[in-house]
């Protein structure tokens, strides 16, 4: 992949005769999330100007880039936590309020509700969504089975370890069967053992549900390991530097970090990152 960006990132050129409006740019096939004309400034300084992006369905995309390039901001704008200055973001043509999403925060301690048990935390979005109690129980039990939970979910969150808390967060975010799952640096507050654990669990969940996932990471290995595509951003004003494909078979075991394909992709990603870092 030389200078030209791969198809799955940029929307294809409008066919001849079609009006050249930004919003009518057709999305590449297999696209789930379309970002068109996104603009965002902070304190008068532009961060994103007319930014376009297609996120593929049922794939895990990592967002990676130099400091201040707006990785978290981009994801938060797509997730609706940060308002856009201009542009449109659609999920299969639907707007955010018609779409079920999940979000996993970096700070799991502050994301969970300590006044109710871990089990009730997972059930919370279901109950608030009006689900009948029997269905809620069934759904949570299904998640417990999927994640092979061995610790006591009847405990309060603050009685659990960091990795357990983050697992509960992931379960809670997946409880409503979201179309897209956003994860903001999910491993940065975890020790390595827990990182391996969560990596495995996330992969299993992804394989089982086919949920489109977007992960922001400031760790290169984390960004590459789980991803199908690694979205590399430039410094501000932020554009797409490259979308690196990583097609290694799943599930990827911890040993994969020694695999030549992983090493190659990671090295290439690093090269692009450093190029952008020094730009």
């Amino acid at each position, binding site marked *: 992949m030389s200078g030209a960006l791969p198809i799955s990132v940029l929307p294809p050129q409008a066919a001849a005769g079609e009006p050249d409006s930004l919003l009518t740019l057709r999305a590449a096939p297999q696209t789930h999330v379309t970002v068109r004309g996104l603009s965002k400034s902070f304190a008068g300084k532009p961060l994103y100007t007319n930014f376009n992006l297609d996120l593929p369905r049922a794939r895990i995309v990592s967002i990676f880039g130099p400091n201040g390039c707006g990785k978290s901001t981009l994801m938060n704008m797509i997730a609706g*936590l940060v308002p856009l200055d201009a542009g449109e973001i659609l999920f299969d043509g639907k707007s955010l309020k018609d779409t079920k999403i999940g979000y996993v*925060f970096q700070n799991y301690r502050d994301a969970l509700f300590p006044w109710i048990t871990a089990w009730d935390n997972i059930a919370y979005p279901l109950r608030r969504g009006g689900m009948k109690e029997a269905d809620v129980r069934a759904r949570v039990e299904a998640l417990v089975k999927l994640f092979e939970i061995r610790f006591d979910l009847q405990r309060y*969150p603050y009685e659990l370890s960091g990795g357990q808390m983050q697992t509960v967060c992931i379960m809670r975010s997946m409880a409503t069967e979201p179309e897209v799952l956003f994860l903001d640096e999910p491993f940065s507050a975890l020790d390595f053992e827990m990182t391996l654990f969560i990596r495995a669990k996330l992969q299993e969940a992804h394989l089982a549900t086919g949920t489109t996932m977007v992960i922001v990471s400031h760790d290169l290995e984390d960004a590459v390991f789980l991803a199908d595509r690694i979205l590399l951003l430039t410094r501000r004003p932020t554009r797409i530097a490259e979308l690196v494909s990583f097609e290694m078979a799943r599930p990827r075991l911890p040993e994969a970090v020694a695999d030549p394909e992983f090493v190659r992709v990671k090295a290439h990603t690093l090269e692009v990152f450093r190029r952008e870092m020094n730009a």
Partner: protein
Amino acid sequence: MIGVPLGVMLGSSEAAYRSVEFLIDFFRSTPSSALIPLFLLIFGITDINKIAIASFGAMLIVLFNSAYGVMNAKKTRVMAAQIMGVSKWHVFKDVMLMESLAQTFVGLRSAVSMALVIVIVAEMFIGSENGLGHRIIDAQQVFNVKEMYCSILVTGALGYLLNLLFLLIEKKLIHWSGKA
């Protein structure tokens, strides 16, 4: 004698909860003891007077603390609830209100102490028929030092016990404080 301050405490918490409005409303609260003459004018020399002043003073404290507690609710937690698509009312009830409880209880305990102070002071100077404050000032006036010290100690013990009571309630209710 002892029942009156207790009733005052409970009364003031009820009033505070009912009037709890989480607005950013910073107004200067004049020292409640300075308001005693005003309340005298309004209520006269009755027991209701004491309850009124103490309730008012206590309510202010609880209000401040509750509002402060809500404003300082952990933003991540609020965002987590919002992004789960929960209605605004539920975000308030399930997250902000719960988050503010710890701070509210701090306010309650301060308010309890404050109310006790006001009641004792009021009893001393309004001229009530009974009450600890009355006993203290009476004893002082006739130089009955033993009686005076005794009453003061009882007052202190009362304050301590009330504080302890609220502390225990808080520990039972807010099991997560300091841990999350």
